[in-house]
Every structure is written in C-alpha cells, then in structure tokens.
C-alpha cells in the first residue's frame, strides 16, 4: 500500500540554524501539506501546496518557513532560523485530486536546543 514517507525521523539542531525536513508524498497525489504537533498538543496546520504554489498557510507559517517541491517526488519544509518553540513533530500529508482524505507520514521529530 502506498504511503507518505519522511526523513529524517529525528533532527536535532541548535537555535538559529536552518533545517530542511523532507517528505515523499504518495505518487499520484497532487495536494501536499505540512502540519506540526507540539508535544501533548493538537495537530496544527502549517501550509498547503498545490500546482507548485502555496494555496493556504497559517499564522504559524511566517517568513522563517518555506516549502518547495524540488522534483517530481520530494516535498520539503525549510525553517531558516530555528527557535526553541519550533521543537515539535512535523507531519507531511498528501491527497489526490478527487478524494478529500489526507494521508499522513510518520513525522519528523525536530528538537531545537
């Protein structure tokens, strides 16, 4: 069964450093998403991406964040200068054009020290 994959599973970085989180969505999907989940809290929407552009973003997704689909399979989330409060699980999700359900990857645990 096709699934969303994410790398790395755990990333530790120092405050102020740049990180890139990588995702490979399900191959025939056209909509891509990033969500995050701070420990013990809700899953929060960050950004959605369709047709090579951002279609919606939340207040969390400020100028420090960017997304890219550098090739036909990868979808990345970059945080330019990490802050302590960026520590969270980051989930990538994707869906196809016809059906609304989003399929999530296993997540990347980001720890900012």
């Amino acid at each position: 069964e096709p699934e969303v994959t994410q790398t790395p599973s755990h990333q530790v970085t120092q405050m102020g450093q740049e990180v890139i989180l990588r995702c490979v969505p399900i191959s025939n999907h056209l909509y891509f998403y990033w969500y995050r989940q701070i420990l013990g809290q809700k899953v929060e929407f960050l950004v959605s991406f369709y047709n090579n552009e951002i279609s919606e973003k939340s207040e969390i997704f400020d100028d420090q964040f960017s997304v890219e689909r550098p090739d036909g399979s990868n979808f990345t989330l970059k945080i330019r200068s990490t802050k302590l409060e960026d520590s969270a699980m980051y989930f990538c999700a994707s869906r196809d054009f016809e059906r609304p359900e989003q399929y999530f990857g296993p997540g990347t645990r980001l720890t900012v020290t």
Partner: protein
Amino acid sequence: GESVGLHLPTLSVQEGDNSIINCAYSNSASDYFIWYKQESGKGPQFIIDIRSNMDKRQGQRVTVLLNKTVKHLSLQIAATQPGDSAVYFCAERMEYGNKLVFGAGTILRVKS
C-alpha cells in the same frame, strides 16, 4: 473562530466492548469531517470520513455519526481490541477549504 474540541481526554474500555469517542465542532461552515488514529511515535492514520450531507457512515468495525443540529461527531468502534489503543483525533474542513482543523484528541485504552 474555528475550533474542534474533544470532551474526554481518556476512555478506558474492556476488550470486546464497543467504544464511543465524541467530538464537538463549532464551525457550521465545515463540510467534511475525518477521524484519525495515532499510535505512539507514528503519524495520524486515516480511519473514516463523512461529508456534511450525510449523518452516518460505516466502515470495517467503525461507524461515524454526524449530528449537524448540535454540531457533534462520534466514532463508534465495535468489539474493541487491544490494537485499537491509541489517541483518536477528529478533524474538520471548512467548506471549499483545504486545511484540516484538529481536535485535542482522546486516548483510548483497551483493557484485556
């Protein structure tokens, strides 16, 4: 504003019993609802979804009920098994929207 909330943080059931997990939503403009299961260290796993033009949908051992009058969503799991132990999230999507708004989550513990 948008919000989806779960009333009970933890639900304990005996193996073999039926489980009911509840969710209240506040946005009447939401047109689509979805339940996810999240096991420790994993991403949310799709269970079942329902559109706002329906009030019930059944899957394998799971049923989702939607009551738009009181803005309530529930997930029923029949014959609960130890493998059902996880955190369950409901989420909603606003009409013609894109993002999912998640509730706080309910922990389901199945006792053998």
